[in-house]
């Protein structure tokens, strides 16, 4: 009998469970290496060459090179590990999070300043009709 994973039907959300952690192990360990200033320098000098030192698959490497955080998460990356990449880029959690939502950074900030993303209509996959998650009334009116 399989394990119950009720979180699979929460839209726009990847829960970093044992399965994802196994998939993303090397991607996440690469991220950890960026906690040392000397490694950040090496990475910035030649990103591809630095990535090639890690046993990551091409999909993971492309995710990193294009800074596509949704792609990295789908490939097993975890946001707290991935934060070492955007921190090295001088980006905040807010900027990185907005990049995953398909919203512009100012729209995302406006959404947060007006109470954040609403939960209504964003609980179940079946509630998402046009592939887009709801933001909140203040942002949608704009």
């Amino acid at each position: 009998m399989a394990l119950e994973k009720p979180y699979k039907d929460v839209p726009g959300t990847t829960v970093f469970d044992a399965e994802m952690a196994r998939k993303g192990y090397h991607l996440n360990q690469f991220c950890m290496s960026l906690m040392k200033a000397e490694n950040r320098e090496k990475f910035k000098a030649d990103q591809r060459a630095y990535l090639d030192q890690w046993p990551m698959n091409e999909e993971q490497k492309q995710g990193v090179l294009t800074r596509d955080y949704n792609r990295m998460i789908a490939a097993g990356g975890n946001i707290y590990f991935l934060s070492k990449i955007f921190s090295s880029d001088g980006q905040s959690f807010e900027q990185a999070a907005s990049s995953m939502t398909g919203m512009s950074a100012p729209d995302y900030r406006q959404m947060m300043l007006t109470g954040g993303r609403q939960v209504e209509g964003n609980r179940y996959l079946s509630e998402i009709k046009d592939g887009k998650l709801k933001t909140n009334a203040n942002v949608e009116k704009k």
Partner: protein
Amino acid sequence: MAKINSAVFCSHVPAIGAAIDLGKTEDPYWVPLFKGFEFSKQWIKQEKPDVIILVYNDHATAFDSTIIPTFAIGCADRFPPADEGWGPRKVPDVIGYPELAAHIAQSVILDEFDLTIINDMKVDHGLSVPLSLMFGQPEAWPCRIIPFPVNVVQYPPPTGNRCYNLGKAIRSAVEKFDEDLNVQIWGTGGMSHQIQGQRAGLINKEFDNRFLDRMVSDPVSLTKIPHIEYVREAGAEAIELVMWLVALGAMGTDFKQVHRFHHVPASNTAVGHMILEKTK
């Protein structure tokens, strides 16, 4: 006898640490948040805790994917701030309390809570941001601190019920320590937030306020919240609230609320804050 006399609950958003470190606390964006901690800073000056047991989570800092302890306790003399990718925060080292930490470990392991003992560890914003919020920017933290990391990064974190019962075991361990100490326990992280995927930015004020209500009116009921409810209702990262339940469990049933605060947003997160004092 050592005794846990009060509990502090608060979020540990990294951007709050950055706002303090970069002198932005007077910015209009941040003013309402720091206002919510003015009472708390005065309160803790009068309380003068000797030790804080600080329940927090490490964010892929000291623990990467090689070792993931569900519950751990810092037993070292000193814990320096970690470099999380932008250089270490310029905050004082945490001075531990090895004798009390080892005593707690020995007591709660025999109560069937199998802690991982950590003798060498750097600490990240999960631990340092609550200290900055409560103490500001001192040269040295004014008391000893026992770091108590809980895994909430790789799913599943421990259940709320397990956390609550661990809190009870910590309380009884502290009371067996043969020294007069004014001990606080802090539960950090939360409240509603999601910082990943298309659903990032999710906030649920009603969920948070109900949670804060029930901490006082019916604490045990919170132990029954299943993980999926945190994820679906309050965002994937709201599951950090199980750490609040460790501190709540340590408070037992005889306590009163002395402060409560909720604010949206700090970066991607709803900030919740509460102070409870024992009445017996």
